[in-house]
């Protein structure tokens, strides 16, 4: 994994977030309490002089890690964030695809319709998954939340589309060009608080955080950000290898995203 210039990455991300804020009246950011979305919120605070001027949405299926709930409450209070908790129900027949597709995406649709958000900041990165690599910095979704990955707007010379489908919305992806080490380097440089589950606990830690049903830890003794970065520099294992829904066939991930999943 190559370390990039995080100052340049941060500048571009701030530009994308400010551009989106200037174009869309109603905007919100998704927050999973993971390292990427928390780093994105730290960047947004910098972009707007210490404040996050839009609500933050947590899609809550109720089976996230307890540490994540505590982290959410503590950081929301510390940073003065307006957090909208969108509850998603659990159907007994849950599996990777069904859970994320029918539960969380349904909850997201409901909150977007209720609040009328035109744009949603999502902290995905191109290096996470082949399907996410197809994304644009500002990417349209139609009124049915569908993503037409075969027909995406061109983004040349930092020129982003803001064409909004009637009753659709736009996804804003300020971290697209970041990689995993960049995120950790940024967190370290800026003292960004992170979920304690990323640190090793008796020989195990979480490299990627989802809910308790579909996330498994990795063997690791990394108890500090420096040791995490050192570990990542030599690993050949994918970041999301511990996430069950990614183990399903790649086309399922594409289908999920085309239906509105993050």
């Amino acid at each position, binding site marked *: 994994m190559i370390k990039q210039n995080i100052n340049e990455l941060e500048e571009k991300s701030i530009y994308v977030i400010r551009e989106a804020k200037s174009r869309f009246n109603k905007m919100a950011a998704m927050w999973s309490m993971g390292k990427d979305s928390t780093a994105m919120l730290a960047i947004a605070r910098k972009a707007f002089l210490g404040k996050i001027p839009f609500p933050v949405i947590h899609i*809550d*299926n*109720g*089976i*996230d*890690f*307890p*540490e994540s*709930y*505590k982290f959410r*409450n503590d950081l929301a209070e510390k940073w003065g964030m307006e957090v909208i908790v969108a*509850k998603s*129900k*659990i*159907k*007994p*027949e*849950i*599996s990777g695809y069904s859970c994320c597709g029918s539960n969380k995406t349904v909850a997201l649709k409901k909150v977007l319709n209720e609040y009328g958000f035109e744009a949603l900041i999502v902290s995905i990165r191109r290096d996470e998954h082949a399907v996410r690599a197809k994304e644009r910095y500002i990417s349209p979704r139609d009124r049915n939340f569908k993503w037409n990955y075969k027909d995406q707007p061109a983004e040349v010379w930092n020129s982003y589309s803001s064409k909004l489908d009637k009753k659709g919305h736009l996804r804003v992806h300020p971290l697209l060009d970041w990689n995993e080490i960049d995120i950790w380097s940024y967190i370290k440089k800026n003292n960004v608080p992170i979920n*304690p*589950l990323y640190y090793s*606990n*008796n*020989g*195990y830690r979480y490299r990627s955080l989802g*809910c*308790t*049903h579909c996330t498994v*830890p990795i063997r690791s003794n990394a108890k500090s950000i420096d040791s995490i970065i050192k570990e990542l520099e030599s690993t050949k294992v994918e970041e999301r290898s511990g996430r*069950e829904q990614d183990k399903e066939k790649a086309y399922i991930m594409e289908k999920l995203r085309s239906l509105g999943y993050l």
Partner: protein
Amino acid sequence: MKENKSSNMDFGKMLAKSPTRDNWSKVPTFLKMEGAKYYEVMYSKGGIKDSNDLAKSSVRVWNSRNRLICEFPLFVKDKGNFEGALHFFKDLVQKPRKI
């Protein structure tokens, strides 16, 4: 702190039988009084595919001396809908895994 093991487990059994919001609201006080520190989520082997698997999944809670306090269900059941209940355990930490 006096540990009345059987009544603690009865509380968990009562909640598993009737996981209503009203009953779940008693959990934070219970956890505080019993000195709960660690949690472990136990999913039915093979994950959750139906209501039976859901019923078999649970959250085990230990105190700081690693003594099992109680075993709770995983969900609130409200008007026939299931909602995850792990936020009730937000002041606990995950039990260290065995190496």
